[in-house]
């Protein structure tokens, strides 16, 4: 009895334990790891992945998946940068609308949300499997990004925009603040709101949820909308940090996000998982990336190691849920 309790605690904190062990390991091998600078560096690097993977967690909890987040990230960043720098110009109507910093950021977020809502709409209205619907959006959003930027980066966005990705606020990098806010809001949604309940319920048993009077379509559309918006948040951070909106930004970021979700113990079939788990998953990936760089491991090996970690995480998770 005591042993099994002990074991269940161990299972609960396995990601945390893995993270701590990983940190100790890298710390022993490299004296550059446990420095304040490197700490902030890691945190800043993973802030983008945290934004995306938090949205991804919500989607995966409903039993879905969102492959479009990388492309939505790109278009969110590009729109924000474009609006700030060029505004909207309609030559035929002789019309020009300029955007403030806040306005352009909002513009990026609105576009991200709309694309996410569109995902949700096709998934619920036409019963397109999430994998396919968001795969299509992956291409569509990338295409629109190319069209909007004409294939060129939009750069030199000014100091106030750069503050988002590179600035500090009360001794903490701004992107870390942003990801912290995203995490807190997401935890409140999942734990304290009816929407959160419905997200878990739908992932656990969609049909029973429907019979219980839950509006499945509404919940799913909202969730994909949130995922799109958070991808755009990530896009704005990336754009700001580079001081440039790259048309090919965020390529394959969806894979890192899914990895974080999976390592964090969220079940890909839905209904089971936590935001904190995903945050730990993102931290593990971040620390691993950072550690492998510090240890001068070749980038090719880095990929192999990362894949192995994902696989290992899922195997451990399966073994644990089997023992339940």
């Amino acid at each position, binding site marked *: 009895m005591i042993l099994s309790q002990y074991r269940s605690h161990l299972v609960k904190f396995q990601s945390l334990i893995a993270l701590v062990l990983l940190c100790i390991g890298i710390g022993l091998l490299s004296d550059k790891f446990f420095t304040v600078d490197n700490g902030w560096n890691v945190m800043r690097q993973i802030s983008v992945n945290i934004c995306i993977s938090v949205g991804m967690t919500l989607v995966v909890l409903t039993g879905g998946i969102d492959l479009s987040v990388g492309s939505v990230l790109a278009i969110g960043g590009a729109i924000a940068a474009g609006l700030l720098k060029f505004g909207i110009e309609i030559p035929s109507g002789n019309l020009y609308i300029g955007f403030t910093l806040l306005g352009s950021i909002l513009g990026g977020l609105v576009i991200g949300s709309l694309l996410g809502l569109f995902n949700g709409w096709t998934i619920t209205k036409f019963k397109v499997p999430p994998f396919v619907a968001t795969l299509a959006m992956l291409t569509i959003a990338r295409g629109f990004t190319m069209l909007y930027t004409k294939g060129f980066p939009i750069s030199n966005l000014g100091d106030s925009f750069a503050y988002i990705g590179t600035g500090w606020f009360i001794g903490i990098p701004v992107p870390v603040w942003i990801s912290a806010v995203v995490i807190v809001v997401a935890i409140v949604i999942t734990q304290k709101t009816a929407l959160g309940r419905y997200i878990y*319920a739908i992932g656990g048993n969609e049909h029973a*949820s429907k*019979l219980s009077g839950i*509006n499945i379509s509404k919940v799913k559309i909202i969730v994909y909308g949130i995922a799109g918006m958070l991808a755009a948040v990530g896009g704005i951070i990336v754009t700001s940090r580079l001081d440039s909106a790259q048309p090919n930004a965020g390529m394959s970021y969806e894979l890192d996000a899914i990895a974080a979700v999976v390592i964090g113990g969220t079940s890909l079939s839905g209904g089971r998982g936590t935001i904190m788990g995903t945050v730990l998953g993102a931290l593990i990936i971040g620390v691993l990336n950072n550690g492998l760089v510090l240890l001068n491991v070749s980038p090719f090996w880095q990929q192999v190691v990362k894949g192995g970690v994902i696989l290992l995480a899922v195997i451990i998770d399966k073994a644990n849920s089997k023992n339940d």
Partner: protein
Amino acid sequence: MLAAHHISKKFSGVTALDDINLELPAGKVTAIIGENGAGKSTLMKILSGVYDDYEGDVIYKGNKVRFKNPREAQNAGIAIIHQELNLVPYLSITENLFLGRELKNSVGFLDKKAMRLKAETLLQKLKLSVPADTIIADLKVGQQQVVEIAKALLYDAEVIIMDEPTSAISESEVEILYGIITDLRKENKAVVYISHKLNELFKIADNYIVLRDGRTIESGEMKGMTHDDIIHKMVGRNIDIIRNSNIAKEKNVLLKVDNLCLGKAGNAQKNILNNICFELYKGEILGIFGLMGAGRTELMEVLLGLHPDLTKATITLDKDIVRFTSAKDAIKAGMALVPEDRKKDGLILGLDIKTNISLSSIDQHASTGLIKHGAELTKAHHYIKALRIKTTSEKQTVKNLSGGNQQKVVIAKCLATKPKVLMLDEPTRGIDINAKNEIYKLISELAASGLGIIMVSSELPEILAISDRILVMAEGCMTGEFEAANATEDNLLKAAIPKTI
């Protein structure tokens, strides 16, 4: 034929079986009797090779055996028909029957012709009149159960274990099943029959073995035993079967359904439900009886606002004409449904009791947007107490509850929405007799408190025992209405049997 000596089995320290002994002679039907949790399923899983880590010996045809997996047991001649259906939904009947033991021709390709032929013969024997290449998903649950039985009969099993084989099939199919069992007995097979329905056991079993709390309590011949004897041995105490006591009521119409029709998707000509009209009074228990496929479940679904595009009806609830376009609408208006399949349609198995109870009514506690956990907890405690849900805590995952307690959680979820009409579809399916009585008592109490109750059931004794009035359905139509006092098994069945066959 098959015997077990001193079998014990533990699950992570908890004893499930404790020194079990049993004999299954050839040419006899042995009933295994016990409440849920008595260890019946665990024992059957040991005999059929699902578990191989047990203490004690299994003796098969005089030899000591220890099956490592179900396949080994199957090959040796032990077949089990599980309570839960184990069919692949998108494969045909034939493909399911031969899954894992496909017939091959000389080149090594599938011999589809031979397989179809054999499947057809088998289906004919079991009187299932559908083509052998029908996809499983297109079959009703009862028909799927018959396929499950066919699977066990396909290879010449010597020992056939049936775990609750009648939980999903109608009376007429039960008769067919009895015929099959009688044939098996003649062919000198050993049949194990597990059922909660004691009447069945008296009809079909030769011997009985009573399990209680993982131990063999008694075994012997069925002959000479009475209903009460068996119940007494099962639970170790007597139970009063609750009779309906709700007589003489004011007739306040609560729900009035006029000309309810449900069309079939993609087929304008054929209706699933035709011109259904009935009234439900406040405080009344209205039983709806019908054989499988009569449209009972569909009627409940329509009344919960599912299939809005295919439904035509005038529904009056509490003097207001209502129109439901979704389950959400219907629940808001005061309808609630305890669905037929609680695991599939009623519960989120992976979530805890509290969350399941508040699932339909969580917005009551989230007026500010944030859930008031205190109020939610109070409600969960209230229902756990009021419905006598046996659990250590409201945080217990519902997956780990017994069938009866799971059903109570579903009922609690419905009650939490403060319904006017509570519909229960086969509320006691697959739960043990003690829990059944609890549910009956609960239904009576709820009716007494003023709820209108519609109870769908295919178990005649049950529907006769607790309904005030009984409607009978056949082929999507109402074919009879009986006051409880005038209803008998005979006239209900007569009304329920389709005329067109």
